[in-house]
């Protein structure tokens, strides 16, 4: 089955991005396809490559980048939400792409299920 995932909160402050990541890992482990992960609202902050949490904590941005690399995930950061919050090409972590909100609608159209993670 094809899943779309929408992440509406940034890393750490809320669990939303962690939950979305665990869901994505589990879906891939079960042989499902992730059609796209779309980052909107503060979710765009997940794509900031400068994040450097304490050594004994998870690095959420790097987790997403690694998952994208391993499974050829399409991870899209909303351009408008990103501009508003200062998430631009110069600080974009590997695996994330900046594109329009239409990519969220497209995910809704093409995926069999769209799962929302927010606050």
């Amino acid at each position: 089955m094809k899943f779309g995932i929408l992440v509406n909160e940034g890393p750490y402050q809320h669990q939303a991005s962690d939950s979305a990541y665990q869901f994505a890992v589990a879906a891939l482990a079960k042989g499902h396809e992730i059609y796209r992960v779309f980052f909107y609202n503060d979710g765009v902050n997940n794509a900031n490559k400068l994040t450097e949490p304490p050594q004994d904590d998870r690095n959420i941005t790097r987790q997403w980048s690694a998952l994208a690399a391993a499974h050829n995930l399409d991870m899209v950061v909303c351009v408008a939400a990103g501009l508003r919050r200062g998430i631009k090409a110069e600080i974009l972590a590997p695996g994330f792409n900046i594109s329009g909100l239409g990519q969220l609608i497209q995910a809704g159209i093409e995926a069999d299920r769209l799962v929302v993670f927010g606050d």
Partner: protein
Amino acid sequence: MSGTQAGEGGNSKVKRFMIVNRKAPYGTIYALEALEVVLIGAAFDQDVSLVFADDGVYQLKKGQQTKDIGQKNFSPTYRALGDYDVEKLYVERESLQARGLAPEDLLVPVRVLGSTELSVLMEEQDVVLSF
């Protein structure tokens, strides 16, 4: 990305998208950014409807004056939704009543539904986006 082929206005698949608004405006950005999703959904020729429930009904309150909080008043956009062929606006009756509001207090004409009717409508959707 197969999605990029099907551009605005030229999409062959049409799904029922429902955007659910349950939060008040200005205290958080969700109301404003949900509205942007609605407009794009309409531009992609999808069957878009909006629900306002709980504090989300406050998004439609007439008379918003935001000058003194330094934020943009985006409430006129709800009035422009018709221009984008977004005409399915639903408000939950119980949420309105709990807030002592009547349809006349709202910026735009809406269909007021009881919670049971609304829950049926929600079940009939293909994609539900909650903000």
